[in-house]
């Protein structure tokens, strides 16, 4: 602990940041105040649009040209840096305050070796020769525990994995021993196990070197595990600030409560996540363009129809029998809907993405597919959806072999409408020139040969309604919809032809937790209503545990373990599954330090 001191390292006082946009001035940060003591780790959590990243960029004065600090003060070591000249700022950057960014690969110069880039960071502040710079870069690579640091020195960013790129980024950020490190979503997009090693490294380095850290994240679990204090931000304001254990076990502000409830934990059920979402009228017909609208509803106490078992406090460990609404097991005698036998997918140059994989899904059953990136789970989802051809093996759907039909001809198969897919990125998977109506009508026109008319309109409206998309939004184009609304369009499109098997490839990975909660509930409801079978691909183990009866764990293209979700998550049999599970962060769980 640092001794009590009168002067914090960083003090932000009533900060306002405005952006000038085509539609006039937009205030992204509206009166934020907090402080960070030397050596302290402060978490800033909130959903997209809450202004947490803008605050960080305001502190480092790296805002876009259109944004500026319109009010308030940022004092670093007693000095107001909102008025610092660009020369003063250059001396601060890297040497006193440095930043780590989301998407580490993009944050590194693609055509410069990582050794040179680290040396650049040092030489910006210290007059050393390039040979010395190289030696120091090597030391730093060792400090961030990169394997074979001598070899990595001359590697380009594209030759390194995402986790390694983030380590390089950390090496650059700590190169000149700054007092404050701002980490903006440092592990978003990384695998759970990589996330854990990177975060452990960050907390080790900051502790060793006495650096303060501001950890900006949307992941409450991450904040609760690694921070000494957490600020919750909503719409440009800090709504609550406390120690993580207190904050997450007894949240005070309604927004914090909703956020905590929406975060999947080791014991939560689908129904726990967002109780108010079960009152569909409150959610889907909200005129507010953002999914965040339900917050206002619960704030006003309008939610009366709380389902049993849904409470804001994290529940004590639920017994395995207490399943909530998440699971309805198909009867044992249900026939197999999908059978995958010895599936192999090889790419050029001997890359085997999927290696001898077999599993089965019963009608109405939900199967989870988990594993790290590169484990082959997305390839399997594309193989089963018949978007790509398998190199070997059988895919049986309803007893018929569909693996033999070439993927490019499968759209003519009558089974095409029975197997549909929801993609990871809700934006990229919608045609930007189609409005929501056309997106949903597309499969109906193509696969069911429906002609424009009342029948098609009725069908599309029905699908949209079932996916919780207000019919007033059907005329809008993807760029006019929020992330959650786009996800709903994708789901409505996938269920339009009433498939029997729905493949979900990381359907909520790009969404905020509160939106994710609503979408998961929606999927679960659709599944029960239609007796849909789900193949649920995800890297989020908590989500899979809630959504799926059975889970398949993949590693390097092979299945390492499969079984009933509850049993598997309670007592994993293999070392790999155990590692994966241990890397999952739980809200208010035992802290690492």
């Amino acid at each position: 602990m640092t001794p009590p001191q009168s002067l914090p390292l960083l003090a932000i006082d009533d900060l306002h940041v405005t952006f000038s946009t085509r539609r006039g001035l937009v205030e992204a940060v509206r009166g934020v105040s907090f402080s960070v003591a030397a050596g302290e780790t402060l978490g800033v959590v909130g959903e997209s649009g809450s202004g947490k990243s803008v605050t960080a960029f305001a502190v480092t004065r790296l805002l876009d040209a259109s944004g500026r600090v319109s009010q308030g003060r940022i004092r670093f070591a007693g000095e107001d840096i909102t008025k610092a000249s660009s020369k003063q700022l250059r001396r601060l950057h890297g040497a006193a305050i440095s930043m780590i960014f989301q998407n580490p690969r993009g944050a590194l110069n693609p055509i410069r070796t990582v050794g040179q880039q680290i040396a650049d960071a040092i030489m910006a502040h210290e007059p050393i020769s390039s040979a010395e710079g190289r030696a120091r870069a090597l030391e730093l690579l060792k400090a961030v525990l990169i394997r074979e640091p001598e070899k990595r020195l001359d590697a380009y960013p594209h030759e390194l994995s995402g986790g390694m790129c983030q380590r390089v980024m950390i090496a650059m950020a700590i190169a000149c021993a700054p007092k404050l490190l701002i980490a903006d979503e440092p592990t978003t997009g990384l695998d759970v196990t990589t996330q854990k090693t990177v975060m452990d490294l960050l907390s080790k380095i900051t502790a060793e070197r006495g650096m303060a850290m501001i950890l900006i994240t949307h992941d409450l679990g991450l904040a609760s595990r690694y921070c000494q204090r957490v600020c919750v931000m909503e719409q440009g304001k800090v709504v609550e600030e406390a120690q993580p254990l207190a904050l997450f076990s007894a949240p005070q502000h309604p927004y914090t409560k909703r956020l905590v409830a929406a975060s999947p934990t080791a014991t939560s059920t689908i129904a726990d996540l967002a109780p108010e979402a079960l009152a569909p009228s409150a959610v889907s017909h909200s005129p507010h363009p953002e999914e965040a609208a339900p917050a206002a509803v619960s704030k006003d106490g309008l939610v009366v129809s709380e389902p049993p078992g849904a409470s804001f406090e994290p529940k004590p460990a639920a017994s395995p029998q207490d399943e909530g609404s998440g699971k309805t097991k198909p009867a044992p005698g249900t026939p197999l809907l999908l059978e995958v036998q010895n599936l192999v997918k090889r790419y050029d140059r001997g890359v085997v993405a999927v290696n001898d994989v077999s599993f089965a899904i019963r009608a109405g059953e939900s199967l989870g597919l988990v594993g790290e990136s590169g484990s082959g789970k997305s390839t399997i989802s594309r193989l089963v959806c018949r978007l790509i051809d398998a190199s070997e093996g059988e895919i049986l759907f309803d007893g018929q072999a569909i693996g033999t039909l070439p993927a490019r001809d499968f759209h003519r198969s009558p089974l095409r409408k029975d197997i549909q897919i929801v993609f990871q990125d809700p934006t990229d998977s919608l045609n930007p020139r189609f409005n929501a109506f056309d997106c949903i009508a597309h499969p109906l026109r193509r696969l069911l040969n429906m002609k424009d008319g009342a029948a098609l309109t009725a069908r599309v409206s029905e699908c949209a309604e079932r996916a919780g998309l207000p019919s007033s939004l059907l005329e809008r184009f993807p760029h006019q919809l929020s992330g959650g609304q786009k996800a709903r369009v994708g789901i409505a499109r996938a269920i339009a032809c009433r498939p029997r098997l729905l493949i979900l490839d990381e359907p909520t990975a790009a969404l905020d937790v509160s939106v994710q909660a609503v979408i998961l509930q929606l999927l679960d409801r659709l599944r029960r209503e239609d007796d849909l079978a789900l193949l649920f691909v995800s890297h989020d183990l908590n989500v899979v545990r809630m959504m799926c009866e059975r889970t398949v764990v993949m590693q390097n293209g092979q299945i390492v373990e499969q079984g009933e979700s509850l049993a598997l998550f309670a007592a994993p049999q293999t070392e790999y599954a155990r590692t994966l599970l241990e890397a999952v962060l739980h809200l208010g769980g035992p802290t690492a330090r």
Partner: protein
Amino acid sequence: MSQLSTTAKRAGWRFASSLPALFGVLVFTFLLMRVLPGDPAVFFASGPSAGKEEIEMIRKQMGLDKPVPEQLLRYLGDIGSGNLGRSLTTGQPVLADLKSRLPASLELTFSALLIALLTAIPLGVAAALRQGSWVDHLVRFICALGVCVPTFVSGLLLIYAFYYLLGLAPDPTGRVDIFTSLPPRATGFLLIDFALAGDWEGWRAAAAQLVLPAMTMALFVVAPLARITRAAMLASLGSDFVRTARSLGLPPRKVIVTYALRNALLPVLTIAGIVFSTMLGANVLVEKVFSWPGVASYALDALLSSDYAPVQGFVLLMASIFVVVNLTVDVLYGIADPRVSVE
């Protein structure tokens, strides 16, 4: 070293895959020349009074009495043995004509491209750094001007200003004035040959002759190069890695040059290759205005007098140069961008 070998492999593959296109160009121009109106035999007969027998004899001499497929086969056979035919206007073998004239065109084009790049890149960078300011608008204006004034107009204007009014430039007739003695021919590039011979006075004379035509051509291609530099520079200035460089306090020069500009030059390189190939063929107007003894004006003269062989030779030459330029750009790109060799 593995990067070198993959680059070489890629270049070899690229070259091999462009051979069919080259062959197609050959056949196409051959047929096109046969379809064009105008009988070369009539044109090359002794005069308007030439009798039927004389024309018939010339036809036979030129092989024009044979069926077209046979003519094509003989043509291909000739090319295979390095014989591009003989120009009827100059009386020289086409290969020799092209050899003596190509360096003039290349020297002009290279100089023009160099001037264009040296102008366009700073302009594009300046426009990107001050996006929306008067600098940006000025650059846009200069680019628009360069594109919308045809080269024969801008060439004549430059001659008018620098030769007639100011008297700074030498008279715009050819590569050197008649009083300068030519250096011994080593490369055909006068600037290089003069430098090799150590004749700096001659070098200056040749350079003075070169400046105006090169500027005329450069003016025309500054626009695309400056625009692409500006766009690429804006993209890389807004990229995450430039933000990283700024967050680490790198000096502004280093951020702009080493981080932003080097990445922005990758698309500029691609465009420069295309621009170069286009200039080489399209500079006929400049060559005409400045009486430059290049290949393009040679081909135009031949075309106007229905002289098949030089035109076909010229087209083949241009196609080959296009292939070589693309190849060079490809190799350079592979060296400049380490990501390419992985794909």
